[in-house]
């Protein structure tokens, strides 16, 4: 019965969709002549607006962030038109596959996903850390035994704590010693719980953590790292040409100082940007 229902769901919806958007179906594929990525190409930058300072709402309420500025710089470099495609992080793969965006460029961790996408060169180092209150008495990863630890869903810190493959740096064994692993929709909420004492620590990447701590005293990272990772841009596996173009542009922008200039706007991450280093 359920199968029939599911089938009918897909059928009815697809019929409706078919009639609703029949008009826009013609331009699915642009002609793949030699100059597909020539001047005027509309580059669709897919990103999550919940990920400061890589992609977020800046102090003026505008869409901004290091990744957004970089993507715009690449567009300028090639004479492309920049189109921002904010998406819901949980739906990033569907968005990429469906072609609503050209890439996932949003503080996107390469480690552990090596085979899932076509990757640009890494542009930022990002270490996974444990954030605690300075006076918590927690000094090392071992002290986390029996503690409540918070993490944001669908982040690499979360993946790390779920991964039981120690060769890949998986930290599931550590997570098993926690009293509990609390999974949050956003780090902001997790941070509030840390402040309120509902949890004892947060597993987080260093840049997001720095960002959270930038306005608050009394918090610190443990010296021990939870894991390390790099950020890169994820493309659909067959988009080699686009990937190469972006790589070339990143090199060029690193060379002419643009990267450094943009990074200067984001003091909490500028030390981690690896382009041109």
């Amino acid at each position, binding site marked *: 019965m359920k199968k029939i*229902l599911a089938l*009918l*769901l*897909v059928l*009815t*919806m*697809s019929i*409706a*969709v*078919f009639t*609703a*958007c029949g008009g*826009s*179906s013609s*331009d*699915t594929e642009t002609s793949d002549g030699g100059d597909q990525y020539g001047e005027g190409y509309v580059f*669709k930058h897919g990103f999550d*607006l*919940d*990920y*400061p*300072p890589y992609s*977020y*709402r*800046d*102090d*003026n*309420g505008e869409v901004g962030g290091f990744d957004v500025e970089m993507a715009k710089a690449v567009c300028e470099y090639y004479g492309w038109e920049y189109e921002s495609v*904010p*998406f*819901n992080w949980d*739906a990033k793969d*569907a968005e990429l*596959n*469906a*072609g*609503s965006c050209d890439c996932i460029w949003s503080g996107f961790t390469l480690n552990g996903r090596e085979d899932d996408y076509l990757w640009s060169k890494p542009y930022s180092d990002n270490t996974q850390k444990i954030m605690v209150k300075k006076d918590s008495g927690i000094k090392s990863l071992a002290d986390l035994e029996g503690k409540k630890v918070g993490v944001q869903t669908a982040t690499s810190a979360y993946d790390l704590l779920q991964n039981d493959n120690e060769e890949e740096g998986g930290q599931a064994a550590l997570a098993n010693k926690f009293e509990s692993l609390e999974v949050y*929709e*956003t*780090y*902001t909420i997790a*941070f*509030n719980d840390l402040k309120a004492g509902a949890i004892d620590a947060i597993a987080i990447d260093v840049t997001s953590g720095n*960002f*959270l701590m*930038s*306005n*608050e005293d009394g918090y610190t990272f443990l010296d021990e790292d939870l894991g390390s990772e790099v950020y890169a841009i994820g493309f659909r596996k067959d988009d080699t040409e686009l990937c190469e173009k972006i790589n070339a542009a990143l090199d060029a922008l690193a060379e002419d100082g643009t990267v450094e200039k943009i990074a200067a706007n984001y003091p909490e991450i500028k030390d981690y940007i690896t382009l041109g280093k």
Partner: protein
Amino acid sequence: MTFSTMLSTMADGMLKTGAIFFLTLIGSLPLGMIVALLRKSRFTLVRGIISVYISIMRGTPLMLQLLVWYFGPYYLFGMNIGNWRFPALIVGFVLNYAAYFAEIYRGGIESIPVGQYEAAEVLGYTKTQTFMRIILPQVMKIIMPSITNEVITLVKDTSLAFTLAYQEVFSLAKQISASQTSFMPFVIAGVFYFVANYVVEIAMNRIEKSMDYYK
């Protein structure tokens, strides 16, 4: 970010929330009536399709339906869904709410005594006249409290548009909260939803009162 920047950024999201709200009502209130009437169709097949449609709409999360509407065209037909985000959102909301409204209408229509239809028939009213002049006005009065409930739910449900990253007030609250490490955007969003629903309540009360002239 200053408080006023935060407010003005979120005001943009409030307009978008308003757009979802009004377009959903404009689409689903009449569509729900059509669905309710089709549900009483002479044709078994039509009745069957409608009842499956209603059970799916009511039996699956709206969030999931929104995802299906948005990504469905690509996964099923390989279509380009570039400009489809907002339309998909509205289609999803309208079809979902139409199902709920249809059930409310059906309940209302079924509660009208058969004598009303017979009196109209004997007086020579056509089927359309009977429905529009005699039945529908009475149905409206009966169902208004249930409609009010749904409309209030809709105000809150608009926040599900974050699933498709439509920049309505709740998505913006999440984003600004992340970038400002502040809870204030959620407070603003909360106040906004509360005030919006307060206005809805007052408006619906007025409508209900305007129908109070008979019992």
